[in-house]
């Protein structure tokens, strides 16, 4: 199985080689998407973990037993209206019509409730007016 997670490392354990242990002891492939790790300070990491289901579960138990807080990743798409040049290139790429064109005004609008966070808009927007925000869910 594969899942994106947010890991929070208390200052006391932040210097331990968790990713190495995950790979070596639990056969977990870790793809680090974002990390903020500093010596002796609380750290955080957005990571995609891939492993067989049993190993995945034991790997998470291992992390939690060492004091690492594990929460599922919640992503959010932010449309930066000031950067948007109102072209509309994103509107045919967005699969859920979250980014859409108001007609006849021909202005681009964003409806976050419809967004499925596929992230296709991030690179489809020529002006790079769409950003992804990673949040730790409950």
């Amino acid at each position: 199985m594969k899942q994106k997670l947010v890991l929070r490392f208390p200052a006391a354990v932040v210097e331990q080689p968790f990713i190495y242990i995950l790979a070596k002891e639990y056969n977990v492939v870790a793809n680090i998407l974002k990390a903020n790790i500093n010596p002796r300070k609380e750290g955080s990491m957005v990571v995609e973990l891939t492993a067989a289901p049993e190993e995945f579960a034991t790997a998470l138990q291992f992390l939690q037993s060492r004091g690492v807080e594990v929460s599922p990743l919640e992503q959010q798409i932010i449309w930066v209206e000031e950067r948007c040049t109102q072209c509309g290139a994103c509107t045919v790429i967005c699969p859920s019509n979250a980014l859409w064109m108001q007609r006849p005004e021909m202005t681009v609008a964003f409806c976050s409730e419809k967004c499925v966070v596929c992230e296709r808009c991030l690179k489809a927007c020529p002006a790079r007016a769409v950003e992804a925000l990673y949040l730790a869910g409950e």
Partner: protein
Amino acid sequence: MTQLRTIQEINEKIAKGQAVVMTAEEVLSLVAEHGVEETARRVDVVTTGTFGPMCSSGAFFNVGHTTPRMRMSKVTLNGVSAYAGLAAVDVYLGATEIPETDPANSNYPGEFNYGGAHVIEDLVAGKSVLLEAESYGTDCYPRLRYKKEITLAEMNEAYLFNPRNAYQNYNVAVNLSDRTIYTYMGILKPRLGNANYCSAGQLSPLLNDPYYRTIGIGTKIFLGGGIGYVAWQGTQHNPQAPRSANGVPRAGAGTLALIGDLKQMQTRYVRGVSLLGYGVSLQVGVGVPIPIVDEAALRYAAVRDEDIVAQVVDYSEAYPQGLGGSLAEVTYAELKSGVIVVQGKEVPTAPLSSYPRAREIAETLKQWIVKGEFTLTEPVAALPTVKAE
């Protein structure tokens, strides 16, 4: 054709604050209500606008002399190479140039996050950029290396000089193949997944003066938020393109080479953009005033989206292979509805050119004229054209 007013007379009215100015969109309702003849009598100037990626753009810079002096022969700005095969400290930075370190499409589809267009935008934004120069050294220009953070204000001259802007009409791009393709017309999904177009249609400058009767060399315009001029016909200017009965080209035709002081411009109208899998381009805002010197000028300027057609072209095969051929002819009214029909299939459309910003540019230019800050010019010479039928 009876002349209604001269450009000089229009300028006298502008000076007195009496000129009647309307955008190419606003004038449509007046024409619908009162007809062409009456509207032509009432309106002195129609303003047009367009805002879209225009790859054939770039800027000349004179970065100033160093001590000791240097004949810069290799120059980069924020890592993007500028052409330095000019006099000592003159360079030309092309909008589509990317840094040598950019993986481009070797990491397909390339992201092209930064290039010449972004350097131009950064400079217009007032940010400093890193100038790095090398030279082979001469007796009069001994310096070999130079490195400095430089801003637009510190440069002696900086002007946008775009060899091809404001295309009079353009292809509608689709993809007939089985895989997604990445083009200068944006991302095209397989099997007619979407149709992308790039023109302001009824607001677009050259579509409102299809035979270039009033737009010519020397015409003063809105360029990037400042004042610019038509320098020449643009590259690939082709007045011979097929035209509809109303004189409007049915495909890409005329183009303009534009010049203007970069120091007057604003990032709202000069923006670097990244086209996935294709490269970097510059979004440029252009607005051109059309003096209503006679009834024909107004009739042309009153063109509506439903009267302008464009050709639907396959960018998976026909375009790259230079095969020509159109899959369908559609109007800008159809394109703006959000769906067109190609080969019996309903295809969702998307613009790359921003209609709201085109409208904003036409409106800004109108306000400049109404306030007496912008007067109209007589062209110094005509652009190559064809006879109106």
